């Protein structure tokens, strides 16, 4: 129900008036004190200075804030330019660093190829890089970037600086597939360094994951021992002779000596190599 006479409105109005009056009074006091601070009367000037002291502090603080902001904005452009110059310099240096890193890598790779050439200087070798490795878990092959167009033929031996890697099992126009000695279908005719006796080094499914090979067809009276080196014998058509293949790490004697075999660690860590040489002739 609305009354003719608005009691609440009147109360609100009064409140506003009181606040306005108080605020005006404070301003008036400050203005007066400001005007009277230079008065000849020391009491009045002292009192005025005391009254306007907080205003002075606030105004000084505000002044310094605005002054710093001004300095900031005037220097900002200068700082931005300097920052841009430094960023450009950093970009240039980063690009130079990447270039020098790639040059260093190429240098290392060329050195490795030179090592292969020095090791097999009596062979005609073509160097290649490994493009990609086998996709399944049951074989051990990789694809290189040389093919028929580069003079690669089937069954040519593939070597690394440290030893034998495998042979070319498939040739395309520009790429070839290398079956490594770790592949279960691979077998290499080898000679044991200490006894000069022949044996067969085969890949094995069980040992493939451990990067090991199986030496079989060891002669019954053979006096082999751990750390004996194995070299290619040159028998068969695939591999030339005297290429290091591996080192015996374990000898397993079966029930009969006829079942005797040895575990061999290959000279080349096939998982880690990225360049190989193909023996052309």
């Amino acid at each position, binding site marked *: 129900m609305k009354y003719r006479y608005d009691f609440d409105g009147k109360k609100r109005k009064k409140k506003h008036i009181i606040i306005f009056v108080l605020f005006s009074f404070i301003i008036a006091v400050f203005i007066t004190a400001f005007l009277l601070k230079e008065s000849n009367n020391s009491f009045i000037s002292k009192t005025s200075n005391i009254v306007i002291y907080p205003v002075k502090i606030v105004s000084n603080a505000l002044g310094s804030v605005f002054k710093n902001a001004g300095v900031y904005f005037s220097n900002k452009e200068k700082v931005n330019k300097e920052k841009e110059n430094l960023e450009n310099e950093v970009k240039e240096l980063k690009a130079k660093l990447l270039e020098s890193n790639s040059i260093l890598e190429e240098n290392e790779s060329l050195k490795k190829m030179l090592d292969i050439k020095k090791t097999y200087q009596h062979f005609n070798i073509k160097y290649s890089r490994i493009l*990609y490795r086998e996709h*399944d878990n049951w074989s051990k092959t990789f694809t290189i970037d040389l093919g028929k167009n580069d003079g690669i033929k089937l069954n040519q031996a593939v070597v690394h600086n440290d030893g034998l890697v495998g042979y070319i099992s498939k040739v395309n126009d520009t790429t070839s597939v290398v079956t490594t000695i770790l592949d279960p279908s691979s077998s290499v005719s080898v000679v044991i360094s200490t006894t000069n006796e022949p044996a067969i080094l085969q890949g094995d499914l069980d040992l493939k*994951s451990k990067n090991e090979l199986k030496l079989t067809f060891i002669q019954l009276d053979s006096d082999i021992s751990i750390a004996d080196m194995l070299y290619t014998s040159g028998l068969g058509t695939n591999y030339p002779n005297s290429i290091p293949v591996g080192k015996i790490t374990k000898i397993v004697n079966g029930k009969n000596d006829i079942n005797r075999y040895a575990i061999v660690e290959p000279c080349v860590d096939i*998982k880690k190599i990225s360049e190989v040489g193909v023996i052309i002739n």
Partner: protein
Amino acid sequence: MLKKFLTFVYIVLFIFIIFLFQTMIIDGKELFGIKPNLILITVIVASLWYGAYVGVTYSLIIGIITDLIFGNYGTFTICYFITGTVISLINNNYRKENKIALVYVTLIASSIFEILQYFIHLINTGIYSNIFTLLIHIVLSSLLNIIIVYIVHSLLYKLLRYFDKNIGDYSVK
């Protein structure tokens, strides 16, 4: 129309990236002689998600592409095709957004794929190993594939939903 075409382009690009990743990075790394197989995972997901027609076609195409790249005379075609077909046939029993279902299906598919690879290798080379080696291969490859599938499941789900939205929903209901 343009949106559909672009989505097909994205699908092709996605498959291309998967192949690149598999050949350039993953095939060079192995754990106890076993590598994970991202291509198999895409076959599993496509067969589980889209059912028989799409799954079988996709696995056939992927198998052919893999054989062309690696030159294995059709071995991967057969393996991926059979795996994709089996998964497509059992897809009605699993909810596609369920992570655990995808893990089970990955286990089944990895086992089938490794067994097929083993027998094809046996036929090609005449070399066999004992059953223990085969079991280790199956367990390790399944484990690696399951780990990858578990990690990328939510991303795959979003990607497939995006493809569904733009091409049309061919996914199995």
